[in-house]
């Protein structure tokens, strides 16, 4: 069984049911399956080698779904790209994965000259807008021409390419890029088995059915957004897309008008909703469940969410891209009793807490979370050394420190690696430090995450200027802005004479955090 079978099965069982809604437009399962099949037929005619990568640079919309499932139906590997990234980052990812086709939304045409200048492997560009003027050297086709279905070219029936439904395929299905501790983004390779097994486990514990629909504000290129998409296609439910969470009232209106039964967010989603919207005053009578993942949410915020949404089941979940993504969930009826816990393993997944020698620790003791099961990634694309660091004897070493209680509920207590979780994004401190250090006025730089009510963590840069140099916060931020995605730009920049170090000469980030937090309280 492959990811494409999720759509084929839904189209067979619920052909006329809504699969996705975006603003005034919608697609039912038959329409989505047909459009994906037509795109797949076009991609197959390129005669690409099996496993060739097709990158998708689209914000959440119906075309994203057609692109994603079209690539899957063609038996190729999808690479959803973060639309908020700078050209430099996109360029890196496209070159790294060696994408042969780029499916790109017209609104991101500004990246094309930089991308296509260096990525000669791309042999076809597909877009929703006529953007051939931006890429005269690469063959171009309009997505609407490919999937329009004028009758000249009947796609092969989608089920003619279905795989054995009883066994999950170990072939590579998708690559999701994520920030790594080494600075450069890492391509997390997920197989059909990884994604389908985790989708099925999630549908099982959330008890999703074809009557469910989820309001999606999280991007599909983000593994949590992708999980929302796959779980709801797997059960024949619907995704209601709204990209306007910057105006929470608009999204809440959509939530009520669409009668969506589910809503999903990261901690900052709920911070914003609770502090700057009318969520607590709305009846939300169709909303049955709320899921929260993407980083630890402060127990106080969970308490506020329970008070604001007393009639909804609230599911706190934990995972990571490398685990496709879900690892644990906290059943709603245990939410108040086990406040602050990430819950218990999802069906079919094993979770252990181990010490530095790999031995399991006793209840109450802190160790590192390791994960075993069909959801553990194949590895990082083109990075065998990085892969060997995190997959040991088949177990995924998460880098998250945790303990479990006498009832078997897990609690995350911190992170081993220097990854900052800012507004739901995983941000590598090292990548930002490297960019800051490229500025010729800077002698030393350290980047840390500080607790922030809205962002979860806020990025704080601490820098030492070279002698006789002058600079200010805005100058450093502007430097970063040109080289990094907006969410990676430090929120604050502190100028110091020296950085605290440990004996080996490494920057003492714990000490630095203490200094910054003490400074913030002054």
């Amino acid at each position, binding site marked *: 069984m492959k990811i494409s079978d999720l759509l084929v099965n839904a189209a067979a069982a619920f052909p006329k049911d809504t699969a996705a809604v975006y603003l005034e437009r919608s697609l039912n399962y038959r329409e989505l399956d047909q459009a994906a099949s037509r795109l797949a037929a076009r991609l197959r005619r390129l005669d690409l080698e099996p496993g060739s990568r097709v990158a998708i640079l689209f914000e959440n919309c119906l075309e994203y779904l057609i692109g994603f499932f079209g690539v899957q139906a063609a038996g190729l590997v999808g690479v959803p790209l973060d639309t908020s990234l700078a050209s430099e980052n996109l360029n890196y990812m496209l070159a790294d994965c060696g994408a042969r086709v780029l499916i790109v939304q017209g609104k991101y045409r500004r990246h094309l000259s930089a991308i296509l200048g260096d990525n000669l492997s791309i042999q076809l560009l597909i877009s929703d807008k006529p953007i051939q003027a931006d890429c005269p050297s690469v063959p171009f086709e309009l997505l609407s021409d490919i999937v329009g279905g004028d009758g000249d070219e009947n796609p092969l029936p989608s089920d003619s390419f279905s795989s054995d439904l009883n066994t999950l395929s170990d072939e590579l299905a998708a690559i999701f890029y994520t920030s790594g501790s080494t600075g450069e983004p890492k391509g997390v390779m997920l197989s059909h088995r990884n994604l389908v097994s985790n989708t099925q486990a999630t549908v099982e514990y959330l008890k999703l059915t074809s009557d469910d629909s989820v309001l999606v504000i999280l991007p599909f290129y983000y593994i949590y957004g992708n999980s929302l998409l796959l779980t709801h296609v797997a059960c024949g439910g619907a995704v209601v897309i709204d990209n306007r969470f910057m*105006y929470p009232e608009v999204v809440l209106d959509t939530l009520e008008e669409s009668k969506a039964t589910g809503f999903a967010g990261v901690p900052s989603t709920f911070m914003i909703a609770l502090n*700057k*919207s009318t969520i607590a005053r709305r009846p939300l009578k169709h909303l049955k469940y709320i899921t929260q993942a993407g980083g630890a949410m402060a127990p106080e915020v969970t308490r506020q969410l329970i008070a604001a949404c007393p009639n909804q089941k609230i599911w706190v979940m934990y995972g990571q891209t490398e685990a496709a993504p879900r690892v644990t969930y906290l059943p709603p009826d245990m939410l108040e009793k086990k406040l602050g816990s990430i819950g218990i393993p999802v069906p079919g997944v094993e979770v252990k807490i181990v010490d530095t020698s790999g031995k399991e620790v006793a209840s109450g003791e802190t160790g590192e979370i390791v994960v075993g099961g069909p959801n553990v990634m194949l590895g990082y694309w083109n990075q065998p050394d990085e892969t060997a660091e995190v997959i040991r004897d088949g177990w995924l070493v998460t880098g998250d420190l945790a303990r479990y209680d006498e009832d078997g509920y897990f609690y995350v207590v911190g992170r081993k690696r220097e990854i900052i979780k800012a507004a739901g994004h995983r941000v590598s401190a090292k990548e930002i430090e490297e960019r800051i250090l490229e500025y010729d006025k800077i002698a030393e730089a350290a980047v840390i995450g500080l607790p922030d009510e809205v962002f979860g963590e806020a990025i704080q840069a601490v820098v030492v200027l070279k002698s006789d140099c002058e600079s200010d916060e805005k100058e450093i931020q502007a430097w970063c802005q040109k080289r990094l995605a907006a969410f990676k730009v430090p929120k604050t920049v502190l100028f110091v004479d020296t950085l605290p170090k440990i004996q080996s000469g490494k920057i003492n980030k714990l000490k630095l955090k203490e200094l910054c937090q003490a400074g913030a309280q002054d």
Partner: protein
Amino acid sequence: MPTVDTDTTRKEIREFIVEAFLFGDESEPFEDGDSFMQQGVIDSTGVLELVLFLEENYSIKVDDEEMTPNNLDSLNNLVAFIQKKKQKKQ
């Protein structure tokens, strides 16, 4: 209560947005009527900063119900919104 000088207000808010969200980079300028959402100028946390700026600088209170694109999603909309709020106060 003086009436709102729309040109000055427009200029002040533009300066704030360029400084706070574009970090002074005006290489990709936005028009007065451009949607911040469409242009990707401001994200969900940016809107909160923008509202704080409006409340502090124009002595208005932005209610949760008023956080909508009609009020906030372009320079033109922002200026009209501030004008409306000021008139209500008078």
